[in-house]
């Protein structure tokens, strides 16, 4: 079955990782093939082995991993048998790699052009003048602003999205046969993601190379890939043409992934009573520098969920820090239950602190790794209520039941829990105080999509049962749709639009809300093209 368009054939790939002094399988017999001009999407949740496969396509195994079986055939050469020398001539040259975090992959002390030139110079492909010309050409095709000058800037002088595109340009410097994209847009805001996606799409379609696009987000991969492989626990779940898989998935797991983020909360009528939390004209700044919040006001009513939405740098997390007292405001006031709160955490009384609890973004660092679950959940009970050992134990069991964890979990350490379970423990810790308001700071963004959905469902059920209010800080509009009653849209430290969810999400929008809403990828292979077309039309009209 040799065909002349075939670039890469990986068959029965086995990769093992070292854990507790033992080799454990990470990838269990996966076949991958890639033809010239094709884009293969590999999707899966964390631990599926997708990045490991991406690296194996270059004949590389990460520290602590080894390729233990199978063949990796690139243009007739078995990369597993190739010498280090031969591999050096392939990596970065014939097969290029674009990593998730461009910020971490660039050397901060060299200009972009110097780093662009590194591999072409090493392989003596081009002269410096040719390299410059090539770089400017690629920067132009990737829609980077000022393509002539951007190469002479340092990595910290360009934005995250631009840096990611500069990295794509770097990968294409030597006209590689294959480019491997490993979650290149995951760390970016949606409005930036769409720019990078369209640039990648443009560049790939114009060149003759093939690409492997690795991501956890089916909607993103749908925009680029011809063929999709769905992985789970190092094994193939399903493989097929992108459109076929999206239209009619064969496996339940794929269907679950497709159904994710389509949850929509029912509309509940607004209440006209005194709000539980009232944020009034808050202006705040960190010690040095300009204000990060300008005149921010919004209300949270009893039993309702308010989502504060915005991109990184919009000030949404600062709002949470003001409310919790970590960042005292310079102007304005926070009222809780009609009473003004001191801007300083230390001056707030214990019972008031009990009434609002917080759930954090990273469950891994939000629980003390040296405390057992019973201590994590039990502490607020003994702290606020001074309960005895027996009562605490009873209440902890009750709380574990509420968050759908087995009672046997009380004696576990956080390292023995999965990410989703840790977040559940954090929820239980918040519930232990019997709060009236829970502030949720990006609680699902560190979790896999299926797990995140479970957490959102749990939070919704708990709200229905316990009638608490939620203040959700998030950048993810799918989360907003799934859980919020009211929405506050923030941009550059200001509230640009707020109101009931259905009002904010139905046109006419504020300009920024419009941009934000239209940038969220949809499970439709034509979505990206449509959006770009519409935006172009609009620009013409203006």
């Amino acid at each position, binding site marked *: 079955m040799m065909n002349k368009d075939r670039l890469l054939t990986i068959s029965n790939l086995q990769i093992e990782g070292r854990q507790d002094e033992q080799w454990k399988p990470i990838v269990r017999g996966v076949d991958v093939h890639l033809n010239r001009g094709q884009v293969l999407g590999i999707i899966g949740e964390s631990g599926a082995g997708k990045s490991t496969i991406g690296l194996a396509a270059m004949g590389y195994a990460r520290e602590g991993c080894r390729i233990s079986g199978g063949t990796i055939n690139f243009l007739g050469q078995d990369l597993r048998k190739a010498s280090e020398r031969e591999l050096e001539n392939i990596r970065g040259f014939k097969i290029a790699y674009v990593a998730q975090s461009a910020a971490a992959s660039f050397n901060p002390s060299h200009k972009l052009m110097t780093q662009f030139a590194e591999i072409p110079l090493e392989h003596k492909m081009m002269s410096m003048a040719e390299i410059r010309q090539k770089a400017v050409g690629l920067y132009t095709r990737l829609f980077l602003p000022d393509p002539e000058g951007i190469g002479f800037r340092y990595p910290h002088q360009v934005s995250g999205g631009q840096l990611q595109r500069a990295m794509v340009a770097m990968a294409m410097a030597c006209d590689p046969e294959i480019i491997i994209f490993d979650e290149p847009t995951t760390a970016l805001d949606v409005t930036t993601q769409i720019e990078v996606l369209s640039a990648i799409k443009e560049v790939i379609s114009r060149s003759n190379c093939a690409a492997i696009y690795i991501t956890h987000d089916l909607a993103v991969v749908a925009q680029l890939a011809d063929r999709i492989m769905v992985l789970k626990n190092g094994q193939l779940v399903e493989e097929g043409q992108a459109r076929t898989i999206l239209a009619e998935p064969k496996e339940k797991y794929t269907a679950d992934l497709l159904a994710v983020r389509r949850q929509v909360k029912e509309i509940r009528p607004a209440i006209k009573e005194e709000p539980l939390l009232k944020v009034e004209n808050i202006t705040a700044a960190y010690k040095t520098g300009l204000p990060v919040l300008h005149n921010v006001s919004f209300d949270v009513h009893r039993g309702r969920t308010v989502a504060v939405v915005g991109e990184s740098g919009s000030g949404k997390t600062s709002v949470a820090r003001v409310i*919790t007292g970590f960042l005292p405001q310079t102007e304005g006031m926070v009222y809780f239950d009609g009473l003004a709160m001191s801007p300083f955490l230390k001056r707030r009384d214990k019972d008031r602190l009990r009434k609002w609890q917080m759930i954090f973004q*990273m469950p891994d660092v939000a629980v003390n790794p040296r405390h057992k679950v019973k201590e994590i959940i039990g502490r607020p009970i003994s702290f606020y209520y001074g309960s005895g050992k027996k009562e605490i134990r009873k209440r902890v069991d009750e709380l574990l039941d509420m968050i759908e964890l087995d009672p046997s979990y009380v004696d576990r350490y956080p390292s023995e829990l999965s990410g989703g379970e840790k977040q559940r423990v954090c929820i239980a810790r918040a519930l232990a105080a019997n709060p009236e308001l829970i502030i949720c700071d990006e609680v699902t963004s560190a979790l896999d999509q299926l797990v995140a959905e479970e957490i959102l469902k749990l939070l919704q059920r708990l709200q229905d049962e316990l009638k608490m209010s939620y203040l959700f800080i998030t950048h993810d509009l799918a989360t907003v749709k799934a859980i919020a009653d009211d929405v506050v849209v923030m941009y550059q430290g200001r509230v640009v639009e707020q109101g009931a969810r259905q009002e904010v999400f139905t046109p006419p929008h504020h300009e920024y809300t419009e941009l934000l809403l239209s940038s969220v990828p949809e499970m439709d292979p034509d979505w990206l093209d449509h959006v770009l077309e519409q935006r172009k039309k609009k620009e013409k009209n203006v």
Partner: protein
Amino acid sequence: MKNLIKLLKTSPISARFGLIVITLSLIVALLAPLLAPYGESEIVAQVWLSSSHDHPLGTDQLGRDMVSRLIYGARNSIAIAFLTTMIAFGVGAILGLIAATTGGWLDNLLSRIVDIFMAFPTLILALMILSILGTSIPVLIVVVALLDSTRVFRLARALAMDIAIMEFVDAARLRGEKTFYIVRREILPNALPALIAEFGLRFCFIFLFISSLSFLGLGIQPPTADWGSMVRENSGAINFGIIAPLYPAGTIALITVSINLVVDWFLQRSAQIRA
């Protein structure tokens, strides 16, 4: 207990060697009066005899039995060094953790005091203070401990700084917990592995420091047996080709190397756990 045995079984040979030496010296230190053939300051023979049946390692500059002196010296040297390290850690670690957790003026005040002390060479500072206050053993312990606690303070503060920005500490602060609880329950358990490893190293440094003070005549005073002062008192023997001062010097080397072997093993293990 079972875990401990399992742990020992998997330990590398260097760590086992270190553990055996440490255990033996502790036994010797505890049972000194029973093990020593002669008294601590008993003059039993002529000066600087070479080894014989009665005196396996010979005698020292006053004609005291070298083996007995070494055994009593183990007791004094190890006990004093251990006590000093404990005090240095108690003071340094607690203040360091509190400084990092509270921040603000308290952190500034403590850190500047520590900076001032660290600006002077420790040995010279110690010599100066000891010359003023006299050289009794309690004074020696307190002075050396306080001087060394500045190093522990720095380490504990740096460790706690990294831990105090974790979200679980934020969670405790939001709950309204007092600083003492946060230091004791949230931060200390996470800083402990590094502190214990440092404890072993500090013990060695303090051991050597007291030895060098004794060698300079400001440490442990005669006739108390102490390995450091034994080196000094016998140092003249070298001129005559007599190896008497090498015995206490050798024991100092042996115990410090042993402790370092164990500490290395411990550091390696905690690094593995973190990865």
